[in-house]
């Protein structure tokens, strides 16, 4: 079967199998740049993949980007699919600044950070649950599956903004990194040891955030992070005029302990940011598919700014 990424419909939402097939096609089309890394399996035994963009070298400084940690935030997965293709084509066509970034750093892109949850949001007709957020692991309550993966990280776990009730949407899990999906990502990042930036894509209303989520106190690098995020949001705004709010997770969305960005920052990854992509107003988690590409493109401008900044400010 001949497969080409150029025939892929980026303006549509796709199921897990189609996204995984897309990744294989992309890797095959850009084998000099991209490899698919299997970082482990999910609770329901699905493989978890990361696309590694690298021009060579061992454990180069690296940038992490993930999407889809919350299953129902489909625009984040769809954006990450588009981003993967964009990074590959920009490199191939020598379009700045991707080649220069990749000459110094690697990019790790995880399109589906919560595969079990994502599959659950597609199940039909008997188990349809489009608005599922968590993973699907069993909990102490047999009636309530699932842990909120963005409350399960080892970052002030069990603090404010997380629930100890398995039936709650933001159930934190029984202990920090109890969830295999979180553990797999944490292991990859810690074993690598040279990540300089950590970015996670979510969706709800347009926000670009930095640590902390668990506390209203300023992070030590707050001033620099705020400046970088402000510039990134301006770059994003240049495409459609989409306005993003910039600030700490705690102050501009809600207190959230056990969040991935705090975990990364506490482990020395200074340039840690969380995006809440456009997905708001009339369409909470139901952004029309004809807005996927424009959302992805504006997000790319912000990500590109941050990646360039990280590249230019080694630490």
């Amino acid at each position: 079967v001949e497969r080409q990424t150029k025939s892929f419909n980026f303006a549509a939402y796709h199921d897990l199998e189609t996204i995984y097939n897309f990744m294989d096609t992309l890797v095959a089309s850009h084998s000099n740049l991209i490899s698919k890394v299997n970082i482990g399996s999910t609770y329901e035994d699905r493989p978890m993949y990361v696309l590694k963009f690298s021009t060579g070298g061992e454990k180069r400084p690296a940038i992490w980007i993930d999407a889809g940690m919350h299953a129902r935030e489909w625009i984040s997965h769809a954006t990450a699919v588009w981003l993967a293709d964009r990074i590959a084509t920009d490199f191939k066509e020598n379009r700045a600044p991707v080649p220069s970034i990749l000459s110094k750093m690697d990019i790790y892109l995880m399109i589906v950070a919560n595969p079990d949850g994502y599959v659950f949001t597609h199940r039909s007709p008997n188990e349809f649950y489009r608005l599922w957020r968590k993973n699907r692991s069993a909990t102490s309550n047999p009636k309530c599956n699932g842990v909120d993966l963005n409350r399960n990280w080892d970052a002030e776990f069990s603090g404010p903004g997380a629930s100890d009730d398995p039936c709650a949407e933001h159930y934190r899990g029984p202990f920090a990194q109890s969830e295999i999906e979180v553990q797999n990502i944490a292991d990859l990042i810690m074993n690598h040891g040279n990540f300089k930036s950590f970015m996670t894509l979510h969706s709800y209303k347009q926000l670009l955030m930095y640590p902390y989520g668990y506390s209203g106190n300023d992070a030590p690098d707050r001033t620099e992070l705020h400046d970088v995020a402000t510039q990134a949001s301006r770059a994003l705004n240049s495409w459609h005029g989409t306005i993003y709010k910039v600030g700490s997770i705690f102050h501009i969305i809600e207190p959230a302990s056990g969040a991935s960005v705090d975990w990364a920052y506490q482990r020395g990854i200074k340039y840690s940011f969380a995006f809440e992509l456009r997905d708001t107003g009339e369409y909470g988690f139901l952004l029309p598919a004809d807005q996927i590409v424009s959302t992805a493109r504006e997000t790319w401008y912000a990500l590109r700014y941050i990646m360039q900044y990280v590249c230019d400010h080694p630490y």
Partner: protein
Amino acid sequence: EELINGDKVFRIHAESESHIHALKELERDVDSGLDFWTHAVSTEQPVDIRVPHSRLYALKDFLKKNNIPFTVIINNVQELLVREREEMVRNAE
């Protein structure tokens, strides 16, 4: 199939600490069937809740009793879901 026909999404604007307290209590009630998309934290951030059809009147009563203003931002979630699924089918074809 779980049909959520008639589910609405409410945007609730807490105006005082007592409003926030009341909304937090509501969220703690796991039997309420309410799906909090954002949480009651401060008077600056609205709280969005997906409300099952069967809970509409109970929630409206609760909000009115506590004098908490709200708007409806999605009238029927199921309609959006149906539209989205039709599009998925078309794309799959």
